[in-house]
């Protein structure tokens, strides 16, 4: 955990929701990542995180890692310069169908790998450009966003291919209208609405909105019939079938496009680009934040890295000093050469201090050399004096 946090720097808030705050941050100082910090203390699903961090799926944001900070989970994933599809709805029907096809491929790939998204909703689809949607927050274990959850999810069932198909239908409706099919201000109201989904004539509802032409409504109608069904067994067989129906719908819509539709699409694309730029500008302008305290911010990252290097250098220095000390101890013997010189100097100096012996013929045989005292010297002097 510490190592992952230590690699994070330059956190700028993207958005703050009910359960988490999302930041744009840098990993290892240069990789832009999305850091999602949950507000509640809860355990991490290690298996799920391991699965998503070790697999790469088309149009699914890559998860780099996750951990806990003071009991609160955080995830670090690939950062996409994009906006949420929530902010780009309603969108032209051809764009919506094409985006849904891309998302279907992603969900199908997840399903093939034995997993599900579990919370398909407009908020969890990021749009990078005209045909590049990205799924975020994969692997939710709960029931997901109620407005887009299949009826069986309200009954406690886990995610399945069928529940994902229902959610995809609900998302498509939102993209076309900018509002959920199964609305409500309370959970119970939403639940009731979801369970009564078959009582709704979606095509008629869309017609009532007045945005879509009859040709488009006709092209989309089979999708509602295979997606927004109360019972799972009444929905499309699988994602391949959905893709085929989407392909047919896409071709129908594309073939019936009027100039006005093209203008609408261009306008939408321009708006998408503008919103992405606006969002990035807003993030850039937002103050740097330290969601894990200052120690985990930019400076702390640099500090930690610096501290690590300092430790390595210190260790190296200690090692070198130790080796030098050992070498010094070995070589710091009093060099025998130096001791010899010192002893020679001392010895010759000693000789100089000795009083010279007088040598006379009478005494030569008795005491030629040796250390003599002043007393000896003087006594000899006295003898000589007498001689002379």
């Amino acid at each position: 955990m510490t190592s992952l946090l230590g690699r994070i720097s330059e956190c700028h808030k993207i958005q703050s929701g009910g359960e988490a705050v999302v930041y744009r941050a840098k990993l290892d100082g240069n990789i832009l990542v999305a850091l999602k910090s949950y507000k509640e203390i809860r355990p991490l699903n290690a298996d799920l995180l391991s699965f998503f961090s070790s697999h790469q799926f088309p149009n699914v944001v890559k998860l780099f890692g996750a951990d806990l900070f003071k009991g609160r989970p955080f995830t670090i994933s690939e950062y996409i310069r994009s906006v949420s599809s929530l902010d780009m709805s309603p969108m032209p029907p051809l764009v919506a169908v094409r985006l849904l096809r891309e998302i279907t491929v992603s969900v199908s790939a997840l399903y093939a790998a034995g997993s599900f998204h579990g919370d398909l909703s407009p908020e969890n689809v990021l749009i990078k450009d005209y045909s590049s949607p990205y799924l975020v927050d994969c692997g939710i274990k709960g029931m997901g966003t109620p407005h887009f959850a299949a009826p069986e999810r309200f009954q406690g069932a886990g995610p399945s291919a069928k529940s994902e198909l229902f959610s995809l239908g609900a998302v498509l409706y939102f993209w076309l209208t900018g509002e959920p099919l199964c609305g409500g201000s309370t959970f119970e109201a939403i639940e009731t609405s979801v369970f009564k989904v078959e009582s709704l004539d979606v095509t008629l509802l869309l017609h009532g909105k007045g945005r879509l032409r009859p040709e488009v409504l006709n092209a989309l109608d089979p999708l509602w019939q295979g997606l927004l069904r109360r019972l799972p067994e009444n929905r499309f067989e699988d994602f391949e079938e959905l893709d085929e129906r989407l392909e047919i719908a896409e071709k129908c819509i594309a073939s019936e496009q009027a100039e006005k539709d093209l203008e609408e699409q261009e306008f939408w694309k321009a708006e998408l680009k503008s919103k992405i730029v606006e969002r990035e500008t807003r993030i850039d302008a937002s103050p740097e934040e330290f969601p894990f305290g200052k120690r985990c911010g930019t400076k702390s990252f640099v500090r930690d890295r610096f501290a690590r290097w300092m430790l390595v250098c210190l260790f190296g220095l200690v090692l070198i000093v130790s080796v030098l000390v050992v070498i010094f101890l070995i070589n710091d013997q009093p060099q025998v050469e130096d001791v010899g010189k010192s002893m020679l100097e001392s010895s010759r100096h000693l000789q100089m201090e000795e009083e010279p012996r007088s040598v006379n013929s009478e005494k030569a045989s008795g005491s030629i050399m040796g250390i003599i005292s002043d007393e000896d010297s003087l006594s000899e002097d006295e003898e000589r004096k007498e001689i002379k």
Partner: protein
Amino acid sequence: MIPLLACALFFVSCGKSSERLGNEALRVGDFDRAIKKFAEALDESPADRDARYGLALSYFGKAEAAEKINQRSLDLWTKAESEFRILSKIDNSAAKKMHSTVLFYLARATIAKDPQAKVLGILDESIALDSSNAFSFNLKALVLQGMGEVDEAKAIFIRILSEYPDFAPAYSNLGNLYWEAGQIEDAWDIWSMGVIQFPKNRHLKYWTKVAEDSLKNRVLEEGK
């Protein structure tokens, strides 16, 4: 790499321990211990030049210490000289001056034991090893003087004084030589030169005074 380096340093350190301890003992004047440690090092490696030099110096130190307190030192000088001789076979460029000094001491100790001993060979070897060893020259001159070779002795003393004018014993000894030969004026010249060179040398001052007095007495006697 680091463990290997550490091991290498450890073994080098262990191998050098006897020699290191010998050096330490030698440095502080614990000559017996130094002899023991250097001998241990030589047991391991008899051709170890530093250990051999250390052992020779240890005997040198022990002999010198014995001499200072008037103990018999001839055997120790003999051992020291023996070690320096072995050392010269290991490294003939090493410690020549020290070897020369040892030979001087050996010659002096030999004479102290037996005044008739023939030490000129030892002194010549000492001078051959270190031609600047004025002590050996000086002792050789004294020995020659004792043997009656006065002219040769005189020549050596003069040579010492010309080459090493700061070698005080030569002034005394050359003065003595002249004094013994009855050349009181020459003796006075040499001793007074010595006094100029070494104003605090009691011996030279004393004998200069004696020579002066003697010369004055001679003049007075001649006047009578």
